[in-house]
């Protein structure tokens, strides 16, 4: 029999959802109650996630679920369900914990906002939708929750709706991800058509189980690629990544939620969930669809890292670093390192939330300034933020031994080095690692070192309600490093359904030194280039970035995000706008024109009849004229109200057709 938690797993998303709905029914004045409900909802979800985690420890590769009938059409029942396996359990823990930290932080960050209650309603809804994605045992249910994640991000990115830029960014996010979702949707109906079910696991009959997979055969590649479109949109992969940096228009806790725990994680999770479809018919772990995943990931990872190195908005740098790290995860999934990719996703959830909340604290302290060139010296003014931010930065850069990001990156490098198809991704990722360390060093120097500049002179440490979540996330970032070490690869083997063994010798591997060298190179590069910034005088805000003075064109190219937004604006967007206008024009002039032309023909016919009336019939017997003239007058009214003419035409046409029928029959 299933444990209690398996049959009641649905409560994990349902409780935050209920919290969200009950908050929505409040008015704005009950701020404390609203925040309390949201946080209690999240604590309950976290507790239940821990409960759900326990049974998955009992046996390697634990999997249990519950399916139910959503509706019946014809003789077919459409079933949905939820599933509990290591992947779900690990994601549940990460999402609920990180969300909880972000919720608490928001109390401080949003304290002055007049729509405080609505903010917490949306946050809870966001978390609920994402929890729904990870427990779904049906691609359809996953898709439903996936779209709700999109809705929640729309509401939250556009939360400051009075700002036109926020409204535009929200719209962009929704539409860009929906482009990917169209592919996902087609993949979904195709999968349904091919396998006859959308349940993932159904006692051997699910679409991820052998029988159904065999039935898919050759169409698996297309289905996988279509589903991957959805992941490209949600996880901000090239070429649909353009919405993610703009999403920074939302309040910072939202950015943290989108970039760490929810939205962007959904895409990577999706690929991991339906991995059997991607890897169907694999030879040496290589399939056409997985190869596409690898290259999209490589391109995204490198491109975003390059752009991140030139941005000056503290949140945008982090946004591009997210894009870049997501690319890394995709590469890892693509080369067959599913566990490594998910581990990086989990670790990234913690340290990216930490970094975003830290940046929120910085922005709060600097009175809503986001330009790193106007900050500086915050090391002394905001010590807690500084230390926690430094932990996040080292985890993201991959400083070995104590920070979780290092181990997962090492795993990914390890996985890519074994990819039989090509070694290029392996080396390109190495380049990405160097760049990541370099731009994070740049950011640290600008924000925390040197002398305070204009915006940071009067900076102050944030209140405890904001710093405590930072400390909690900082601890987790370090703690996770322990369960991730290759010496005791507990999480790796947990996800793969194996039992971990302790072996200290695995700690020291060639790859450790490689990644150490890469990180040192990156940080060294950053320090070398930007040390002058740290030594700068007070009050000197505007100075050319060292990279800008060295390579002005390259810098501008990257600073403007490779002009991709402009390119899309001038191509796809322009084309579809033109198509819209063209459709409208066609309606007015072609299709309606045909109708009007037909109408004019009727009018002409009326005039002709009138002419016949007056010239031919009028000349005849006088008595018959009266009626005929009346008819003629009726017809001549065609210019004002056309009905009579038409009816006349219709009547004649009807008679003609009747004759035709009689003749044909």
């Amino acid at each position, binding site marked *: 029999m299933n444990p209690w938690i398996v049959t009641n797993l649905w409560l994990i998303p349902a409780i935050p959802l209920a919290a969200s709905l009950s908050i929505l029914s409040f008015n704005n004045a009950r701020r404390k109650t609203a925040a309390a409900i949201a946080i209690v909802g999240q604590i309950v979800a976290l507790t239940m996630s821990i409960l759900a985690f326990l049974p998955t420890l009992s046996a390697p590769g634990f999997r249990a679920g519950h399916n139910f009938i*959503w*509706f*019946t*059409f*014809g*003789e*077919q029942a459409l079933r949905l369900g939820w599933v509990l396996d290591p992947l779900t359990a690990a994601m549940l823990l990460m999402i609920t914990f990180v969300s909880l930290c972000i919720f608490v932080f928001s109390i401080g960050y949003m304290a002055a906002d007049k729509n405080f209650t609505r903010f917490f309603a949306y946050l809870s809804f966001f978390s609920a939708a994402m929890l729904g994605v990870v427990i779904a045992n049906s691609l*359809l249910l996953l898709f*439903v929750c996936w*779209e*709700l994640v999109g*809705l929640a991000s729309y509401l939250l990115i*556009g939360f400051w*709706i*009075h*700002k*036109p830029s*926020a*409204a*535009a960014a929200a*719209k962009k996010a*929704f*539409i860009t991800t*929906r*482009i990917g979702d*169209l592919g996902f*949707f*087609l993949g979904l*109906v*195709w999968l349904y*058509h091919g396998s*006859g079910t959308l349940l993932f696991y159904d006692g051997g009959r699910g679409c991820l189980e052998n029988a159904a997979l065999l039935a898919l055969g050759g169409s698996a590649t297309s289905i996988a690629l279509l589903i991957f479109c959805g992941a490209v949109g949600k996880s901000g992969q090239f070429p649909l990544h353009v919405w993610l940096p703009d999403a920074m228009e939302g309040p910072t806790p939202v950015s943290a939620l989108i970039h760490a725990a929810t939205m962007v994680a959904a895409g990577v999770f999706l690929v991991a969930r339906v991995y059997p479809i991607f890897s169907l018919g694999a030879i040496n772990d290589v399939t056409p669809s997985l190869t596409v995943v690898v290259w999209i990931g490589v391109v995204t990872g490198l491109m975003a890292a390059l752009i991140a190195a030139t941005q000056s908005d503290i949140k945008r740098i982090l946004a591009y670093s997210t894009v870049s790290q997501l690319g890394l995860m995709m590469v890892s999934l693509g080369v067959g390192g599913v566990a490594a990719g998910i581990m990086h996703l989990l670790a990234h959830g913690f340290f990216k939330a930490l970094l975003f909340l830290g940046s929120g604290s910085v922005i709060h302290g600097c009175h809503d300034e986001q330009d790193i060139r106007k900050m500086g010296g915050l090391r002394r003014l905001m010590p807690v933020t500084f230390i926690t931010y430094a932990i996040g930065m080292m985890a993201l850069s991959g400083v070995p031994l104590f920070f979780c990001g290092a181990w997962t990156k090492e795993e990914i490098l390890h996985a890519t080095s074994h990819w039989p198809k090509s070694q290029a991704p392996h080396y390109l990722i190495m380049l990405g690692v160097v760049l990541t360390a370099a731009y994070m060093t740049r950011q640290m120097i600008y924000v925390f070192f040197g002398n305070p500049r204009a915006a940071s002179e009067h900076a102050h440490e944030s209140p405890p309600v904001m710093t405590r979540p930072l400390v909690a996330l900082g601890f987790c970032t370090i703690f996770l490093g322990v369960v991730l070490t290759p010496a005791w690869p507990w999480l790796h083997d947990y996800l793969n359904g194996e039992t971990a063994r302790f072996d200290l010798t695995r700690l020291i591997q060639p790859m450790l030194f490689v990644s150490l060298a890469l990180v040192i190179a990156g940080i060294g590069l950053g320090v070398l280039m930007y040390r002058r910034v740290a030594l700068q005088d007070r009050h000197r805000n505007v100075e050319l970035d060292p990279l800008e003075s060295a390579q002005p064109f390259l810098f501008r190219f990257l600073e403007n995000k490779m002009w991709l937004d402009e390119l899309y604006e001038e191509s796809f967007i322009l084309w*579809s*706008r033109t*198509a*819209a*206008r*063209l*459709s*409208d024009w*066609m*309606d007015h002039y072609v*299709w*309606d024109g*045909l*109708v009007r032309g037909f*109408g004019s023909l009727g009018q002409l016919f009326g005039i002709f009849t009138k002419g016949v009336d007056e010239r031919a019939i009028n000349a005849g017997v006088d008595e018959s004229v009266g009626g005929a003239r009346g008819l003629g007058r009726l017809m001549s009214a065609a210019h004002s*109200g*056309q*009905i009579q003419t*038409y009816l006349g035409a*219709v009547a004649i046409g*009807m008679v003609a*057709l*009747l004759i*035709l*029928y*009689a003749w*044909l*029959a």
Partner: protein
Amino acid sequence: MITVLILIPLIGAIALFVGRPANARTIALTFNALAAFYALMLWQKFDVDLAALQLVERHVWIPSIGAEYLVGIDGLSLLLVLLTSLIFPFAFLAQKMDRGFSALMLVMQSALYGTFTAQNFILWFLFYEMSLVPAFLLIKIWGGENRDRAATKFFLYTFLGSVAMLLGFLGIYFARGTFDFAQLVDLAKSGNGLLSGKIAWFAFAGIFLGLAVKVPLFPFHTWLPDAYEAAPIGVSMVLTGVLSKMGVYGFIRLLLPLFPNEIKIVGPWLLGLAVCSIVFASLAAWAQTDLKRMVAYLSINHLGYCMLGLFAISARAASGATAPESTSSLIDMHAALSGVFMQIFNHGITAAALFYYVGLLEQRRGLRGIDDFGGLMQRTPLLCGWMSVAMFSSLGLPGLNGFIGEFLIFKSSFAVAASFTAVAVLGLLFTAIVFLRAMQSLFSGPLAQSCNALVDLTRSEKFVVVPVTLLMFAIGLAPQFLFHIFNTTVITMAGLFS
């Protein structure tokens, strides 16, 4: 039973002229409540597991021309009767209306009940046309700008379509001597088909034309934006909510079962027209600046999904499925019919709700251009919030009612016509763009000067909005209660088509 339902609104129309003019809307609403109650009773009496027509009333009427008074309901009829009973009170609550207006609306309601329950062509056609005249007068007398032109166009276009359809049926009658739907379907199923040779094509073309105009199917749709734009808001709601379903109903009840061979041959063309409806209408909606016209175009788009589903199953029947394929083909057919039925009902609710909200905005502001508003979220958050639900429902957000029908339709049409379906999903994208653009323009940004004094939802408006929105959620989350109504009918019809 059913006759009573048809008579209730008619009696209401007469009662309007007995009662005081000031009470017109109250009287009309009372009779609507009565009709709604009666429709619920029908639902209660209706046995969902029975395949045959139920609650049949058959009387001799004009035997010389084969006209019988024959009414009865199956799942589809019941669904549409319920939809009619739902949309009309909603429309009555949407605007102030005087005695003549209310009376015409009630006559139209009665005609619609008749259309959805009649099982003999002559009777059906009578009701079908009876709905047209009040709609014409309502637009012509109470309409907005360009009402004369729009009303004339609406009338002539649909009337010409009706004439074509009548001729088609006369052809059938001369050949086979009956107007009874069930008999005609049996004849069509029997070896030789209903008609043969040229005459079959003429009859097919006539009936197709009449129904295609009514739905409307691209490129016979140009009367619709003008008519919906000019019509008073309550009439727009009924036009889109119920009248547009008459065409789809006709396709399901008449054209598909009577002309399986003809549809097989022109199937790809019909699918092409459906895809054109979906894509071009949503694109044209994007180019509109008048909110009513925008919603009108999206109405064409949504009915295009119905057509896609219907033509897909007809094409499926054509492909001559082999034995192992046939179970999956049957599932697709069930999915398509269920999806179309769901879409009929959901589009009725959602599109009517959208018009209702546009009406609220117009009443407050006096204008309804997309650029006439700005920053409403700061002034009327409730109106914006509830209106957004209807918009998201219309763009097919899962969790709301619009998604289920579209999912089933795409599921089945993909199996038959993958390339058509792949193009049709573009409609989903453009619909999203249209609505998000509208939301951005209306709700976001700084509060426009002209919107300073707008009031938020009033208590009586909430009374309308909340139940409708709850219904959208209910169907979106637990749609089984609707599937239950028509499931047996779906299985029976699928048997007819295959």
